């Protein structure tokens, strides 16, 4: 379940197109194991620490990380993003597994409120 780009130095870092001066911070994720939704959610969550550019490259998603602050170490940034991606994947899996029960609980909860009855729904 871990993204393929999870191991440092595993050759998973692609050179970003149009690199300017210092090397860009990139992570590659295998599309087979990581879906785009997880990456986008992760980018949203870490927005205070970095902005993330996501593009497709072959069978991978390549994410370029741009730190907000100058004093962040590259490795910390990558750990942070990878960890968030893993957590998003876990969250998505849990949500999918528990969706039927979640719907059931809400259905049970609202089936007896006056609000639902007043709306005229079944």
């Amino acid at each position: 379940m871990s993204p393929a780009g999870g191991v440092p130095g595993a050759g998973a870092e692609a050179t970003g197109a149009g690199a300017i001066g210092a090397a860009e911070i990139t992570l590659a994720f295998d599309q087979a194991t990581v879906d785009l939704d997880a990456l986008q959610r992760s980018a949203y969550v870490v927005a205070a620490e970095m902005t993330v550019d996501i593009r497709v490259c072959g069978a991978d998603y390549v994410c370029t990380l741009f730190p907000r602050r100058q004093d962040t170490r590259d490795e910390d940034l990558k750990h942070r993003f990878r960890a968030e991606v893993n957590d998003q994947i876990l969250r998505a899996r849990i949500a999918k597994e528990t969706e039927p029960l979640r719907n059931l609980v809400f259905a049970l909860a609202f089936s007896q409120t006056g609000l639902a009855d007043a709306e005229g729904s079944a």
Partner: protein
Amino acid sequence: MKLERAATALPRHGWQLLPLRFHRIDADSVVLTNLVGEHVFVTPDELRTVADGTCADQELLARLRAAHLVQVPGETLPAELLAIKLRTRMRRLPDSTGLHIFVVTLRCEHTCRYCQVSRQSAAKSEFDMTEETARRALELAFRSPSPQLKVEFQGGEPLLNFPLVRWITAEANRMNQEHGKDLTFVIATNLALLDEEILGFCAEEQIHISTSLDGPQDLHNGNRRRPGRDSWQQAVAGIRRVQERLGEDRVSALMTTTEASLGRAAEIIDTYAGLGLRGVFLRPVSPYGFALRGRGGANYDVGRWLEFYRAGLDRIVELNRQGVPMVEMYAAIIAKKMLTNADPGYVDLTSPAGIGIGALVYNYDGDIYASDEGRMLAEMGDRTFRLGTVRDSYADIMLSDGLLNPLTESITLSAPMCATCAFEPYCGADPVFHHATMGDFTGHKALSAFCRRNMGVFTLLLRKIRDDPYFRDLLWRWAQ
């Protein structure tokens, strides 16, 4: 014995997850929460094994079953109990608008540094509410389904228009004979104008007094200037007078947190304790802080405020250990949401947001706002949260796009990050803050000072619950 202990144990993959969310509060500690905010602490590894079905720790699995985080496939009781608890938590939703704020005048003799609203002693007619406006406002207020109505007088300084306060109280009581609601009154005042007539009135009508006390004298007077530079002395004298005349439970104080407050939490607490004030509300931000877009809004130093909060909470816990039963009100509100199914009825930390459906503000000029902060925004030129006037119908006000749009767009159950946040049951929506600082009702929570501040408080409280049995018991008391 026909049934061995092992017979009721859960085998590998022998359970299924119930809806759960998680948050990593420390490197080695994760908190799991269920649909209604019940929590269990686990290690990162335990989270993994519970999620993938390989956990062999029967004691942990038992705790997760009890907290309705996992169940055996085919069980129906957990879903039923969760539904009952969920329904209980939402029970007060249909009882809209319990708090009605009447801005009876904008006039004030203070010039508090953080106030954007008040006007200096101008002609009365210009900035005072009229009886006609008040009557129409009361008629709208009594249209609320809520069985409880709290009428809160604000300003400026409401005592500068005491005759109207008196009039509204009498009129509300008269109208209530027909409605039979649980009607209560609060005056939010700086107490400098308290006199015997007002005290007598408050005693007779069982009015509650809410005042401002920012902390020790220099801090308070530094923030809140008045002619004579004696705001603190007036407040303290007023508090004592009210306590004597009306009783200790009839006066409460609120502090406004400013830059100057940070670093002085313990002193502020001690000031309250010294005056016999049992409840301290370590309030999130100065009421107008968010309005300073780009300056104090998103960049408000949440980290420093959290440090201030932690210090204040520690001081309160210490006082409790010494036998002084003080309560930190923000923690108490959150505790109620964490540890019970009850609704604390606090309009600033609830989803759907408390705007309109929790509180309505009737301004001196007849304009109606969805919240006090919405009114202050209008004073600075942004009338997004003006819902209409007292001449509009109840339906026009409550069903307006001006109210429904921010309500629906800010609901946490469907907001990015909030929807998957473990603390969503404890938190709330704040469309006014996010509109003012970010330009939309939902807000980007990763960049939101509101989110960061609340997450900080939640994790602080949870760590203390996890590690400090004394605090856990104290919080349980505060939650009731």
